[in-house]
């Protein structure tokens, strides 16, 4: 619905999904440390000196996503929230002096979508959503670290908030046969730019393109896809930074295993579909540098959802 609003138009029947989903993202060290703390039944204080030392020497990346909605062949409505925080202490920052790199954002809102199929081969869709955004991007220097009041002020002044209405559109061309399907899709996100007010930069209009194929029987399938975001490079990012590809094999509509490349980094995951529930787990690596391959942050994710 939010990635490509034309997709729900394809398929049989009216109903597509009713869903409630929550997903947690943790970097490797945080996940291990949290698990260790949870398993340490004897510890009264889970924040041990070891944990503090790890936080000073290892970046911390946490995230949480929630989505709730209903989608059918013609219409969808959903609410969502996404929160991410990445904090890294650098011994040698931009100028060689210690620095704390803070990158955090939260986005939440709700939206509606409409989709329509023109025959079996072509579908169009559009989404409109209201978004509230909070964002903090700051490199905090050593002088601020040593002064708690200045540090607090820096963090607070780095936090920017805004809201706006965002519109997206999508179109998909589909070719189907008994055992093989192929799709080519194009999307436009943040049509006309999404203005957020205050000091936040707008979300610029971007065009995305993707291609995918599925080899399938009645219950098993192999789906592979690749997409390139911001085809027109409005954000000035190299294509390696904007490219994603992968394959997912589904067995008896119950278990799915997937692997792929996200910004050039390997990713992998699995999905378990049990009646009215869906479990997901996996790992991906997210680029936190300015170019693909500079600094990858490996993140584990776990998702639990109800879907029918």
């Amino acid at each position, binding site marked *: 619905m939010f990635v490509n609003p034309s997709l729900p138009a394809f398929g049989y029947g009216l109903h597509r999904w009713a869903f409630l989903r929550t997903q947690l993202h943790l970097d*490797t060290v945080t996940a291990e440390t949290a698990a260790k703390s949870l398993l340490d039944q004897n510890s009264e204080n889970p924040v041990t000196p070891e944990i503090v030392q790890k936080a000073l020497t290892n970046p911390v990346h946490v995230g949480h996503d929630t989505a709730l909605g209903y989608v059918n062949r013609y219409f969808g409505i959903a609410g969502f929230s996404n929160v991410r925080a990445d904090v890294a202490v*650098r*011994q*040698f*920052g*931009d*100028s*060689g*002096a*210690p*620095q704390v790199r803070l990158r955090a954002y939260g986005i939440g809102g709700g939206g509606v979508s409409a989709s329509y199929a023109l025959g079996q081969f072509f579908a169009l869709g559009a989404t409109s959503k209201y978004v509230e955004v909070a964002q903090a991007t700051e490199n905090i*220097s*050593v*002088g601020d*670290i*040593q002064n708690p009041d200045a540090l607090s002020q820096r963090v607070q002044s780095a936090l920017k908030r805004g809201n706006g209405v965002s519109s997206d559109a999508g179109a998909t061309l589909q070719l189907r046969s008994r*055992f093989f399907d192929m799709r080519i899709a194009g999307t436009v996100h943040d049509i006309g730019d999404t203005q957020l007010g205050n000091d936040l930069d707008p979300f610029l209009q971007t065009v995305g393109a993707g291609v995918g194929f599925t*080899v*399938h*029987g009645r219950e*098993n*399938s*192999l789906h592979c896809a690749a997409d390139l975001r911001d085809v027109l490079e409005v954000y000035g990012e*190299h*294509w*390696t*930074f904007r*490219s994603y590809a992968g*394959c*997912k*094999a589904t*067995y008896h509509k119950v278990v799915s*295993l*997937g*692997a792929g*490349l996200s*910004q*050039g*980094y*390997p*990713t*992998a995951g*699995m999905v378990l579909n049990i009646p009215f529930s869906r479990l997901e787990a996996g*790992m*991906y*690596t997210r*680029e936190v*540098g*300015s*170019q*693909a*391959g*500079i*600094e*990858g942050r*490996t993140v584990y994710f776990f998702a639990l959802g109800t879907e029918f």
Partner: protein
Amino acid sequence: MRFLTRSALALTLMTSASVLPLAGCGVNYLEDQAPQSPVEEAQLLMEKEEHLEARRVLEEWLSSNPDDAKARALFAATFAAEAGIAIIDLTKKTLEGGAQSDEDLIKSILPQSTDSNLALVRRAKNEIELIPGELRNADIDLEATVYTAAFLLMFLDNLASSNELPSLEEAVELLESLDEAETLARENNIPPQEIEKIRAEINGSDGANDQEKINSYLEKVRAENGGTLPDVPQDTTPP
């Protein structure tokens, strides 16, 4: 079709089994296609303590971008780090508390004042000095203050432990370092108590010229402290 989908599942399982371990290793298969970002690369090399490789990358970058102040400051940090000076240690000591003054803090992070370490810190100081004032930020100012103060204290210790009359060049360099350290300390609101004390003791020492006064001062220090300045790490390696 059953064979096709079984094969597809097997292929994906094998791929997942081979990819999962790689997913946590930071391997990027498009890295060679992506534009390079030398300064970022150098920063990450410094985090991994690969100071020499970081220096090589920055040297190449600065040869075509000599006015990049941040890169120049990071380049200076490679020399200081190789000598054993890391400003993060200052931050940790500040948070731990207990230091009586900012100068005490700087003394607490000094490495051994061997000739090689001294040459590295001298180079760090000189590289920072190449950055014009209008291009400096607070971090660069802090680095300049720390490297200059560290060089001064290590230089004094090195001279004191040599048991030789300092040369005219060394005397001139020492006095210039005193001036630089005092100026930077004042600019950064650090009371230069130790520096003023050293200057006063040198000026008050016997000698017809600066070179002789410095030597008299060093002899006094040697006599009082067994050959070294107080609070600077000693070489405890057995002969």
